[in-house]
């Protein structure tokens, strides 16, 4: 149970030494607890007359043993993960999964050395507790568009590819075993096929772990990952089929047909179960507006129930989970609050991360602990056959698929797909699940583990340099762009329209039909309130505005420059006509300058007063709510905007004393302003935050008094103009697209 190796880790810090002390304490207490229990029987005999002293400090480890060990394991796994990311050199070369397996091996070795019983990755633990979070996370955040567009390809690879792998590996091993000799002659065909099934399935956990780090383009990611998810149905059916029949002995044609029927039942049944739970979850989320706190729990519980329900009937739990996540997501996201959405996202990521870490560590531990029967021929054969069958399968299937695909798969794509077919813990657990009367079990397990190690370590480590070498297209990390969203929707409609003109029912036609069905019938039931009629473009826009507003608030308080270091604001876009078509007579420029000077003069006094005022009160600020700050800024900015519509020269800001900024160090800017040259020629410098902080500085301290009053005014005017643009940008981001603002513009 103890992990003294923690002390050996190089990335030790003060918290770790503290933790080590705690560990030692625990060990000591365990030892003393065993001593205590040994001593207890003596007490009654000694103390027939004496009263037993009240124990001030007592130890009872057995009471908390199980949860304590579990918590300790998880904690240590996470500390390991933390450690790897602190050492950047290692984590760039070796994928995290390999490191975790290595740690697991180490821990397993230590546990074996101290002759303790190691926790093994038994099937129940894996399939019921460790796998669901990973699959749920993957399913909930599955890129639907890419998935549905490539559904045909994915299905072909998942079903036909896995079948081919299973039969090829099983058959070839059987063949070689027959040739080989007495050693392996005991392996009959069905056992071989069973083994082939277990070892042929591409594993989603391993694929996720490796592909996550190489940021490959979306198409390849979804092809390999989608295949790893959907082959679960095939694996489940084949596994049960062969296991049943390895007891019975023979397989007839009727059994084969039953197997095919079973496949459809398993996969479609799994999807249906998942969809039902998904709809239930969506429906429930419609009513949670008063109890926002438990919203995330509904998502998790319904998904877990979907998984377990599918497992009850031997349906494909993975497909059920994916279906549940996919079905639930659009409706739940429309219904839940923003905080709940964040919670859901982060909890899912957290759980899947923990699960993944634990899986790899346990894999390492189980390797050391498990019963092994090493047979060189068998193991080498398995590894080679896995590779060969994968390559052949991918090439053959791509040749057929490319006849039907519009965007064909290139050789590079094929290579990555073949190379990315990693095996992982699912294969191990399925092997573990084999009943013990299968005498080849140890040999199978050894071979499975070797294959897993080979794929995860060797292929996992080399895939990144290969991807770079082959210059495979990477994921383009583009932030949400409103233009892209507009044009994606535009394209959808355009292509649907062209398909209608062409007269054939293609992909877009059906997608459009589904969307319309969704909008008219389903959304009304599953989404609360008026958001059910909100078009996707508007929800996207609102989400983006919210994100930008939060970013601005955050950047303001952290004194980081806002991300768009651009001086373009709404002024540059709005057509000039709207300013001129006003009922108010336009004022001459000189008059405007006068007005501004007067206003500024007043403001200067206010500001000077304010300076001393706000300096004393800076401490109050951190307790101000962000929201109210945003509101204040909005109000201020609204006023400025209104003013700016009446003056074509950018106006001054109105200073409201209530708005103060949290303490931060604004950059002190001093620049000269020559009448002739434009200050805007210089690169747009990132603003350090809202205007307040800058205003504190813009009262140039007396040290710079060498400048004439005129110049100073110009400098300030220019600063204000910059702030003005900033404010306008802020206002654009913060203001809702509501009727009031624009009405005022037009009046």
């Amino acid at each position, binding site marked *: 149970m103890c992990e003294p190796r923690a002390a050996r880790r190089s990335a030790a810090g003060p918290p770790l030494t503290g933790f080590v002390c705690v560990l030692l304490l625990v060990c000591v207490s365990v030892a003393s607890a065993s001593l205590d229990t040994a001593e207890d029987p003596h007490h009654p005999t000694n103390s027939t007359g004496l009263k037993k002293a009240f124990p001030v400090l007592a130890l009872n480890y057995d009471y908390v043993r199980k949860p304590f060990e579990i918590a300790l394991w998880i904690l240590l796994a996470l500390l390991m993960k933390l450690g790897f990311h602190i050492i950047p050199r290692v984590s760039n070369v070796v994928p995290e999964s390999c490191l975790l397996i290595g740690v697991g091996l180490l821990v397993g070795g230590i546990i074996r050395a101290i002759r303790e019983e190691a926790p093994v990755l038994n099937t129940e633990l894996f399939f019921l507790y460790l796998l669901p979070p990973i699959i749920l996370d993957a399913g909930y955040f599955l890129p639907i568009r890419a998935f549905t567009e490539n559904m045909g390809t994915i299905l072909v690879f998942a079903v036909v590819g896995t079948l081919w792998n299973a039969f090829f590996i099983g058959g070839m091993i059987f063949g070689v075993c027959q040739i080989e000799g007495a050693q392996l002659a005991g392996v009959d065909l069905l056992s071989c096929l069973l083994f082939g099934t277990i070892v042929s399935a591409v594993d989603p956990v391993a694929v996720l772990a490796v592909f996550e780090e190489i940021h490959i383009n979306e198409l390849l990611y979804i092809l390999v990952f989608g295949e790893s998810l959907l082959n679960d149905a095939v694996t489940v059916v084949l596994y049960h089929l062969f296991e049943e029949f390895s007891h019975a002995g023979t397989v007839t044609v009727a059994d084969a047909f039953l197997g095919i029927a079973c496949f459809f039942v398993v996969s479609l049944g799994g999807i249906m179960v998942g969809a039902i739970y998904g709809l239930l979850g969506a429906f429930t989320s419609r009513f949670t507006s008063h109890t926002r706190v438990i919203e995330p729990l509904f998502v998790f519980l319904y998904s877990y129930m979907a998984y377990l329900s599918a497992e009850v009937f031997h349906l494909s739990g993975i497909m059920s989970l994916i279906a549940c996540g996919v079905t639930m997501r659009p409706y739940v996201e429309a219904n839940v609050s923003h905080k709940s959405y964040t919670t859901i996202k982060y909890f899912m990521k957290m759980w899947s991360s923990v699960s993944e870490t634990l899986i790899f560590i346990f894999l390492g531990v189980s390797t050391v602990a498990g019963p092994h029967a090493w047979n060189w021929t068998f193991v080498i054969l398995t590894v080679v056959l896995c590779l060969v069958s994968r390559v052949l399968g991918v090439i053959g299937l791509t040749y057929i698929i*490319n006849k039907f695909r*519009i*965007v*064909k798969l*290139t050789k590079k794509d094929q290579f990555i797909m073949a190379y990315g077919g990693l095996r992982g813990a699912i294969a191990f657990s399925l092997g573990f699940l084999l009943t013990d009367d299968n005498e080849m079990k140890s040999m199978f397990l050894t071979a499975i583990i070797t294959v897993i190690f080979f794929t995860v370590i060797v292929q996992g480590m080399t895939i990144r340099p290969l991807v770079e070498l082959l210059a495979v297209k990477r994921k*383009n990390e*583009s932030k949400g*762009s*409103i*233009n*892209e969203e507009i*044009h*994606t929707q*535009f*394209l959808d*409609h*355009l*292509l649907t*329209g*062209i*398909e*209608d*003109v*062409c*007269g*054939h*029912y*293609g992909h877009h*036609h059906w997608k459009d039909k589904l969307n*319309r069905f969704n*909008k008219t019938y389903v959304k009304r039931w599953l989404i609360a309130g008026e958001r059910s*009629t*909100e*078009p996707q*473009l*508007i929800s996207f*826009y609102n989400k*983006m*505005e919210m994100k930008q507003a939060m970013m601005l608030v955050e950047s303001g308080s952290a004194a980081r420059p806002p991300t768009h*270091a*651009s*001086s*373009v*604001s*709404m*002024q*540059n*876009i*709005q*057509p*000039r006509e709207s300013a001129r078509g006003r009922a108010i007579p336009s004022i001459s420029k000189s008059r405007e300058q006068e007005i501004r000077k007067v206003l500024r003069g007043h403001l200067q006094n206010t500001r000077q007063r304010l300076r001393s005022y706000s300096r004393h009160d800076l401490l109050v600020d951190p307790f101000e709510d962000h929201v109210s700050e945003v509101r204040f800024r909005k109000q201020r900015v609204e006023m400025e905007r209104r003013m700016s519509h009446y003056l074509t020269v*950018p106006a001054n800001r109105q200073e409201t004393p209530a708005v103060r900024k949290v303490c931060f160090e604004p950059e002190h800017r001093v620049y000269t302003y020559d009448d002739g040259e*434009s200050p805007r020629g210089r*690169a747009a410098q990132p603003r350090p935050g809202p205007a307040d902080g800058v205003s504190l500085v813009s009262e140039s301290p007396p040290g710079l008094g060498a400048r004439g009053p005129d110049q100073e005014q110009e400098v300030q005017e220019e600063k204000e103009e910059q702030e003005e*643009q900033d404010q306008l940008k802020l206002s*654009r981001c913060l203001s809702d*697209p*509501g*009727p009031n603002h*624009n009405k005022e513009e037009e009046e």
Partner: protein
Amino acid sequence: MGASQTRSEHKHQHLADETGFSLEQVKNLHKRFQQLSGNEETIRELLDSVPALANNPIRKQIIEAFFDKRNQHHDEVGTCEEIGFEQFLMVMSHFRPPTLKTTVEEKEAMRREKLRFLFNMHDTDNDGTITLAEYRKVVEELLSKSGDIGQEAAKAIADAAMLEVASTNVPHMAPEDFYEGITFEHFEQILKGLEMETRMHIRFLDVGTTTMACGKSTS
């Protein structure tokens, strides 16, 4: 009969070479064209012959695109009253997908062609830029079928989008400068991430299957 058949074959072959379709695809599209035009030589009205378009929010733009001379690669501007099969095919050729043999330069050219098509759909007055008013119209049309959220939302979205284009392409603008509109280069820049050549295509039927295709035009 035989002579006219070979003549149309020649014409089809010529068209296939010009637009890049295969002969089979040209024949299929010709059948479809004849259905739409009611066996006439030209099409004047698309909306009636394709009822499915009624559900499409941007049907007007799509129909206009067919009659737009700018999409004909002849450097003409304006709209036609009626289109023949050649013009029909020309518009359709914008939706061909890239093949395995398409080189990188050809892909670039294809992308530019498709983006040009989109640009022409937005730039209705053909001044070379998409002004704010035109962009607003685009967003309004997109949202037209989705209930009465109103003009303001569309305006706000279009404004935000325009601002994004301006900030990306011309990051440093003085307060007095005015961003005239989205030029074609800016348009290309802003939609770079969408990879038009792999997105903007539909499947043109190669073999003469009529099960799902030309036979069932009115749905």
